[in-house]
């Protein structure tokens, strides 16, 4: 307990001392505001933070005044003791600093959040605060006595106090050395709140180059700063940070790339992506980002063109199937689908032609066939489907080939309500007999089922299947003839 107590004493002493030195306005102010709130918290009606001169009338308030006791009841816990200390001290000594409030304190006010006395429900706080009680009266000793204590307050103690949510002046740490020790202590404490507070202090008091240089070897602190800058939207500072340090971890380059998501205007977004290409990403990522840029560039051209076409109303395709949404910012595969849908027949030279997309982005065959198939099937262009799956060898023979497997072809066609004649052609091509039978049965491709059973010489199944086909239909006829053929063959 004694140790904590010593800390407390040092703390108040040092702050008192500082109240008479006038050398750090920002911090002074934050402390003043601090105590003021503690005393006067229930009447803190402020609309503009800059008119502080108005608000300082509090300082003469006698300890134990009504507002003070209100505060006492509101906090309702041992915690308010701390508040009393601060008001005691301020009330007695420190308004000498008041006329100095012209300076801006936007940054220091950052700290006041931390500084403010808070409720003390956590264990550690409750423990320290019982300690305060016993020596509170001593605080009123003449301040001169404590002058020499003020610098004893080590970075470690400072950090520890800040973790507990107490008032702390960081301005005391003047040398770079001290500041860095403070930062390292904060990082060692793992409390993001404190680390951020220290970083804000450093950001304000150090030259950028020095700050950046030091952060290089302090990755944890660096991450916190980046996070802070991102949260508060200080893009410029963040970009400077990223630019000056190309050798930062690669993920930081990505964090700049991420910014494109916040750009609504496509042209600007495109420009931004172009800028990203030059950043030192890994080879892998660079190619993806390059592709992203190229894709958006294409989409802008296609969009302008197609919007025009659609508006003119001359293209039958656009009239019949109006576009549901703009193609801008869609994924590559969606774009490919779109181009297979609206621009299938275009020559390879056109930006919007599917073959051009396929070449530019090195889309694998499988992916291409799948997408094109879905698009053409949706348009019920069965001829295109046929052509897509037909390959010619060098002798001029044609052969049906599907890199995705014919069962998938059938699935896609079926989903688009292809007629049985079309479907059956591809079901027939499914290699695995089991799957072929299943699909054929499911989609009622009778011919395929019958032929498959015939090839399997499965009389029983074939006879059973007779009940599935319509009476007197061509299929029934076929089954009959096969069955009788089989019998004949069996006896011959």
């Amino acid at each position, binding site marked *: 307990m004694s140790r904590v107590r010593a800390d407390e004493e040092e703390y108040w002493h040092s702050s008192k001392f500082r109240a008479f030195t006038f050398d750090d306005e920002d911090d002074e102010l934050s402390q003043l505001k601090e105590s003021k709130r503690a005393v006067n918290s*229930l009447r803190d009606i402020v609309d503009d933070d800059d008119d502080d001169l108005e608000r300082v009338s509090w300082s003469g308030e006698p300890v134990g005044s009504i507002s003070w006791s209100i505060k006492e009841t509101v906090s309702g816990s041992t915690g308010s003791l701390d508040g009393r200390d601060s008001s005691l001290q301020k009330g007695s000594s420190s308004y000498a600093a008041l006329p100095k409030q012209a300076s801006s304190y936007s940054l220091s006010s950052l700290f006041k959040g931390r500084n403010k006395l808070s409720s003390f429900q956590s264990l550690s706080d409750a423990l320290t605060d019982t300690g305060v009680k016993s020596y509170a009266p001593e605080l009123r000793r003449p301040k001169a006595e404590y002058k020499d204590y003020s610098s004893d307050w080590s970075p470690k103690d400072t950090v520890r106090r800040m973790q507990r949510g107490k008032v702390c002046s960081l301005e005391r740490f003047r040398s770079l050395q001290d500041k860095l020790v403070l930062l390292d202590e904060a990082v060692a404490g793992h409390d993001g709140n404190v680390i951020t507070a220290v970083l804000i202090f450093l950001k304000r008091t150090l030259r950028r180059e020095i700050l950046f240089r030091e952060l290089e070897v302090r990755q944890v602190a660096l991450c916190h700063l980046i996070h802070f800058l991102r949260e508060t939207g200080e893009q410029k500072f963040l970009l400077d940070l990223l630019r000056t340090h190309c050798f930062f971890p690669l993920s930081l380059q990505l964090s700049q790339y991420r910014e494109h998501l916040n750009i609504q205007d496509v042209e600007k977004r495109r420009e931004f992506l172009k800028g990203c290409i030059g950043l030192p990403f890994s080879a892998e990522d660079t190619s993806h980002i390059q592709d992203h840029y190229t894709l958006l560039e294409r989409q802008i051209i296609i969009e302008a063109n197609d919007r025009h076409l659609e508006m003119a109303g001359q293209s039958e395709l656009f009239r019949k199937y109006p576009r549901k949404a703009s193609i801008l910012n869609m994924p590559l*595969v969606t774009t490919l689908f779109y181009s297979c849908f609206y621009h299938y027949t275009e020559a390879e030279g056109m930006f919007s032609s599917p073959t051009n997309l396929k070449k530019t982005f090195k889309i694998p065959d499988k992916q291409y066939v799948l997408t094109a198939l879905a698009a053409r099937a949706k348009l019920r262009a069965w001829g295109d489907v046929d052509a897509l799956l037909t390959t010619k060898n060098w002798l001029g023979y044609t052969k049906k080939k599907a890199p995705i497997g014919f069962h998938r072809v059938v699935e896609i066609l079926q989903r688009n309500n292809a007629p049985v004649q079309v479907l059956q052609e591809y079901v027939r091509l499914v290699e695995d007999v089991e799957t072929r039978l299943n699909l054929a049965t499911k989609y009622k491709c009778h011919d395929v089922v019958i032929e498959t059973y015939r090839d399997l010489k499965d009389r029983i199944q074939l006879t059973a299947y007779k009940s599935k086909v319509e009476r007197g239909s061509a299929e029934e006829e076929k089954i009959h003839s096969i069955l009788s053929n089989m019998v004949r063959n069996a006896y011959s």
Partner: protein
Amino acid sequence: EHEVEKMFTLKPGRLPPADVKNIIFFVRPKLELMDIITDNVLREDRGRSPQRDFHILFVPRRSLLCEQWLKEQGVLGSFIHREQYSLDLIPFDGDLLSMESESAFKECYLESDQTSLYHAAKGLMTLQALYGTIPQIFGKGDCARHVANMMIRMKREFPGSQNSIFPVFDTLLLLDRNVDLLTPLATQLTYEGLIDEIYGIQNTYVKLPPEKFAPKKQGEGGKDLPTEPKKLQLNSAEELYAEIRDKNFNAVGSVLSKKAKIISAAFEERHHAKTVGEIKQFVSQLPHMQAARSSLANHTSIAELIKDITTSEDFFDNLTVEQEFMSGIDTDKVNNYIEDCIAQKHPLIKILRLVCLQSVCNSGLKQKVLDHYKREILQTYGYEHILTLNNLEKAGLLKPQTGGRNNYPTIRKTLRLWMDDVNEQNPNDISYVYSGYAPLSVRLAQLLARPGWRSIEEVLKMLPGPHFEERQQLPTGLQKKRQQGENRVTLVFFLGGVTYAEIAALRFLSQMEDGGTEYIIATTKLINGTTWIKSLMEKLEPAPF
């Protein structure tokens, strides 16, 4: 009690009217919430009388960033009180505590921000203040090490915290989520786990599609079918739920039908009641029976809903692939099912779960396989997902294999992570929670209790982060003299989240007759694969302002 007029949920726009003087915002310190509050405050009618006073309470801590934000919006001065409510660990059930900080994993592993660990340590200090100093601390992983260090330092810094409470916990086990990245990726197969996977349990509540819960009474007709999702609370206070929550889903059906028989038999008893005394006794049991019946009806409906999904072809295919990966089959080549799912544009999270699972089960993917997956994902779902992929890589979930060595088979065999003969109805091993896969994290806890970690040193070295043991001295008067047959109590703290299936596995261990250890579970957040991956994904919608 405290004269609270009304409670509102936070949403943008004007505050709902209420004739009150004080309005208290009770919030997590997050910037997006600050924007909502700013909006609320700015739209407040200045002219009204009496003017309303605003207060803000941050949970669990005040953040200067948030206050700075409020200040920049010009509303900070409107708050008369800005305080914090240090609520670190929130009790979810008799044996479960959670910090409900969903971003903890992301912060620790992606942003190197260990504030949540600081809160975890504080929460543990509070816990020790209430339940006594925990004499033994074990841990595995970097975050675990940090938390233990912080606890020890906090203790040293507040010597007064030495309390005289007889310790309830014998052991604290701190486990990093990144020690076991595999478990949350797999689909949980316990009843509660499946409810969470399919519908998402939030703060012990689940919202279900209403169709199955339509009132079956006559006369109410079909015209007003409920359209609001049905909201149910799920915790151990409900007798039936306590019994079935941790069972494998395949074992739930038989319990439900058994219960149904018992309840209808109980209702039948009224025919046998002859004397006034007997009738009185029957009537006195009625409320309990009614409750049991409605609880049974609810869970039968939920089970039906889940069954529809678990019997679907896609669920089965997905599970087959998962189980193949976990048992070490074909983890080193591009998987056809995953490719098909990408081609059919299944939800991205599902793809990511599978790809990550494959990567973890292969100690990283071959560069060619990884590049292939990445390319397919980016081309199909959009290049901006490169950010998400990068996050997953950073978290170690998706990575290229380095050194060409696959450690997973060794880990799997030593820790017996895959059990071929799993008994779902009457389990004899924790692997029942994933129908074959025994969660690595829980296996570590189990082996720690018996025979101790010394037996698995080699495997522990293969898992990331240090493993350690610390002792906290107890005053002699408080040292426990163990009775014969008395169970030890271990608090397992999952840093970075825990799944319901893991909880079920630990509860199973607690209930084992010869186990000798009871487990209490604490975590930063209750997760499942989907919510977990989601927390690691970049938010791709542009900010609304």
